[in-house]
């Protein structure tokens, strides 16, 4: 079982840059750790050091739960540490025009909600989050964001939505298919799969 999440309500933090890569989110030098925690303190370290006014250095965003950011967020490496680091900062959702594929997959496995919205809306919300305390409510059951008096629908994969709102894990679903998977594997040997496992180095 995973944690069940039906709504996310909280403050937005604006980070309107395109192509924020995983080396920015968590630099490789911190990846020698073998746990899933301890990465938050190093998250976005290079941006934090470079600019005292960087969004995550500002007191008013310390309790933010939603990150509003630019296009192609999470591009680069496959490090799931990037997701763990962002979650450790207290973020439960990220809103951006688009996300990189591996980052999206990793986020989903950890219950970090990624929502795509048009770039103009992201910019508008980022501006509001800069100007004043900007709170939104994300309803995962109805796939709707409430921002002030306005409501916005978003796309969410129905399977992921089900897993999130019921607290089910993807792995449980996969394991329920185990018989079919094993049968499929066996049928592939010497038909489609020709690896000689005896060749493994000793």
């Amino acid at each position, binding site marked *: 079982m995973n944690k069940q999440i039906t709504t996310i309500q909280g403050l937005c933090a604006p980070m309107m840059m395109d*192509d924020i890569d995983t080396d920015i989110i968590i630099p490789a030098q911190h990846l020698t750790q073998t746990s899933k925690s301890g990465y938050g303190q190093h998250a976005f370290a290079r941006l934090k050091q470079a600019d005292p006014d960087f969004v995550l250095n500002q007191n008013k965003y310390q309790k933010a739960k939603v990150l509003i950011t630019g296009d192609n967020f999470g591009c*680069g490496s496959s490090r799931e540490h990037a997701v763990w680091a962002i979650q450790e900062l207290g973020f439960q959702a990220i809103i951006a025009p688009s996300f*990189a*594929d591996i980052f999206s997959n990793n986020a989903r496995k950890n219950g970090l909600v990624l929502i795509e919205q048009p770039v103009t809306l992201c910019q508008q919300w980022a501006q509001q989050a800069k100007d004043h305390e900007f709170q939104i409510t994300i309803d995962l059951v109805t796939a709707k964001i409430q921002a002030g008096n306005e409501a916005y629908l978003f796309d969410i994969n129905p399977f992921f939505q089900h897993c999130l709102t019921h607290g089910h894990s993807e792995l449980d679903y996969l394991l329920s*298919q185990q018989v079919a998977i094993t049968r*499929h594997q066996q049928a592939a040997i010497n038909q489609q*799969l020709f690896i*000689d496992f005896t*060749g493994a*180095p000793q």
Partner: protein
Amino acid sequence: MKQNIVEKIWQQHVVQHESGFPDVLRIDFALLHEVTSAQAFAMIEEQGLSIQNPKQFLATIDHSIPTRQNRHEIYDQTAKQQIELLRNNCQKHGITLCDLDSQHQGIVHVVGPELGITQPGMTLVCGDSHTATHGAFGTLAFGIGTSTLAHVFAAGAILMKRPKVMRVHFTGQLPANCYAKDMIMYLIAQIGIGGATGHVIEYTGEAIQVLSMEQRMTLCNMSIECGAIAGLIAPDQTTFDYIKNRPYAPKGAQWQTATDFWKSLHSDVACDYDQTVELDISLLQPQVSWGTNPEQTIGINQVIPTGKINFNESLDYVKLTTAQPLAGLPVDWAFVGSCTNGRIEDLRVVAQILDGHQIAEHVTMYIVPGSEQVMQQAQAEGLDQIFTTAGAEFRMPGCSMCLGMNDDKVPAGSRCISSTNRNFIGRQGTGSITHLASPATVAYSALAGFITSEYQNTYTQKEAS
């Protein structure tokens, strides 16, 4: 129904397809390294699960090790523990590990093909975004996160939405001073760092067919840098010749059955793609990156363009300005290696350029073989002698200076011309500045002391003996 190669491989691996659900995709092999596997082992252990088929996995140590001679001594205690943990995990779960004393230790994407693990039509995954390297063999190979690796451990399959397919068709012949590295960097510059997000790329065209396997690996390796899930090339005789007689390759009568099957793995004539990109490379120049992501790349005779908002931040970081040329820009470091360009052919190209010359006095050059096998081959051919005579350091196999997570780092403020795959801020070490290029351009630049793709008059000629 006409199908492209990706659709064929996908269909052969789909265990379960149900509307509203991601597909259950059978995974044939997974490669592991020390950085992204520890938590996956812990995840299955916490849930009381075991590894379904340990033979389907192979582990190596590459990212966090030093590349100096006495690399068994790891000074970074956290890295040392991470490596110890991989050893323990592999032993506990019966997974083959190419450890530091193995003949097959090396960068995961160099080792897999070398051992003949990477075969056409397979699905192959690794907790590493450069897994698309294996697509050179017509393998559907892609990077996954640690949780997904735990799924492969426990189930031998993953959940995934069927990707879209982009055809990238190269027309024209590759000019003599250009390599696969220049082709892929050019593509990334054209379609952008997110240009192929959601897609698997099939690379086609005569210019692809004439590439060696090693060049094809370089090309596929950087597919992720334009956002692609994977990139692949339909297998042909070049592919089969490379695989034959390698340890994991099919033997005896199996070889014929295998090649017969592999020959069916090509896109049908007039099949559909979700997107097609055509690139003429007949006038291609050697490519060099100027900014802080691989999209920010130009031909060596071009000047830095004006562009998107992010350009200014990138320019500040790399201490350059618009309209400035890259040719002639002084470099402090030169690096040849990585899963992109750390194979024997890369080292041969570099050796040929360095032979009989000295690298510039102010340049430090590391040449790091991608694997033990590459290192031994280089030594057998005397390439190591050429490197050291030219003033470069020939080091032990590993990821080295590609990602700044071991002892090999470019110092803050230093500028490095590098045969690697990413020029992200701080990628090669905090404050480092990276210019990506082919191994040939790296070698010429190391000699000259500034960015160039040809011999210059300013470097010191070795005295005739």
